[in-house]
């Protein structure tokens, strides 16, 4: 869920940009170190950015019967890691603003925080936790993708509630309003994206296991062909 251009007050727009900056900066620092050790990773990150952007432009059948677009935060975090997803998320959101008019330049910081930082870190953490608890592979992927989606939307609702507190109920009432209204679209989207990510991960595991060995997140699972 992108916050549209110009919707946030200037103090919040600047504040969320400053909050996202250390994560993006650290992500770039890590990427720079990786590139010094493995220069071939440079191309991988560029192509991964394009993949994440195209993923967000695909139409996905929703459980309500309508169509929506996947966010790709869960799958991106599982495939490329959450640290790399902060700068990748920044570039993808910039492309979405300038090529599709989704989101915006003044709300870029807030959108990066929810979709490029909270979502990927949540997905990665949930996937690792599910792996530690030895949950089935499909369930782990579903939980990671669906809960990352939900946490992204909860973060956006919190950002909106903080910017526009309810005159009588304050932050809590405003958060309940935004979370309640956007839940109508976001909960079915999260379930759909969770199911889609399971299909993707299962297909990758069945047919492309050698490629997946490059991704540490899938280590520990046995291949079943």
């Amino acid at each position, binding site marked *: 869920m992108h916050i*549209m*251009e*110009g*919707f946030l007050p200037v103090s919040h727009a600047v504040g969320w940009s400053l909050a996202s900056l250390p994560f993006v900066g650290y992500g*770039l620092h890590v*990427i*720079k170190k990786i*590139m010094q050790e493995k*220069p*071939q990773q*440079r*191309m*991988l*990150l*560029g*192509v*991964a*950015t*394009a*993949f994440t*952007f*195209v*993923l967000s432009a*695909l139409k996905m*059948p929703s459980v309500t*019967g309508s169509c929506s677009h996947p966010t790709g935060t869960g799958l991106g975090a599982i*495939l490329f890691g959450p640290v790399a997803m902060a700068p*990748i998320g*920044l*570039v993808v959101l*910039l*492309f979405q*603003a*300038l*090529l*599709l*008019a*989704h989101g*915006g*330049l*003044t709300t870029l910081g807030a959108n990066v925080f929810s979709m490029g930082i909270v979502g990927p870190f949540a997905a990665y953490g949930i996937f690792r936790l599910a792996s530690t608890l030895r949950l089935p592979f499909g369930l782990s992927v579903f939980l990671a993708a669906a809960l990352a989606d939900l946490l992204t939307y909860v973060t956006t609702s919190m950002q*909106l509630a903080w910017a*526009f507190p*309810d*005159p*009588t109920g304050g932050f809590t*009432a405003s958060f*309940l*309003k935004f979370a309640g*209204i*956007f839940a109508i679209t976001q909960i079915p989207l999260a379930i*759909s994206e969770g*199911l*889609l990510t*399971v*299909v993707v*991960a299962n*297909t990758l595991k069945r047919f*492309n296991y050698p*490629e997946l060995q490059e991704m540490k997140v899938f280590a520990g699972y046995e291949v079943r062909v």
Partner: protein
Amino acid sequence: MLIEQWAYTNRWRWVPPGAKALLTLSAFISAFVATHPWLLLALAFGLATLTIRGAGIPVRHYLRVFLPPLAFLVIAAATLGISIGGTNSPWPLTLRLAPNQLPEIVRICGRSLACLTALLFLAFTTPMTDLIALLRWLKMPPILLEIMTLGYRSVSVFLAAAQEITTAQKVRLGYATMRAARRSLGSMVAVLAVQVWQRAAALEKAAQSRANDGPLLFLDNEFAGNGRSFAVSAAGGFTLIVLALVL
């Protein structure tokens, strides 16, 4: 992508991107400074007219890009117009209209529309390659610009691959039911995900075969009439900010 198509073919394609970015920045500043809703709506209308008439973007194409973000605006504005609970309410969760919020909601909507039209002015008139060159001039981290450049150049490749796979799946009734659609989409995304590694390896080989062992080097476009464009843009932007401050 409609925006990209017009960014390369509009009348102001060869106006320096810095001048267009300066006007966009001024429009953003004036949208945040202005308090009067009519001024914000006039700013939005003016910027949309400038993009449509000046850059030669067809109205129907402009509206196809302009209208979808308004869904968020309508829902969010409606949410702001409703208040939960109240001092006289016996119920903890009572929804009621908040008419005293109306002026603030109108101002937020006006600001969003003004900022959206400012964004569309830049997006419809300036190709991504020029914007990346502008960011390079502004000394953004080179590593971020490399990711942007490689990512932008790979987007069309992935979109074409996605389109071809979808067509092949559709002719085999891969999207006939919701279950089949999810399976088809999932397998397509999986194939595209694997292509990330394959295409990256191919690009790396191509770069190495051209003796590239460091950062990617670029030749930027040259734009005529830099001074005049910047002067017009600065004058326009200054006027917008002054009007926003005074009115």
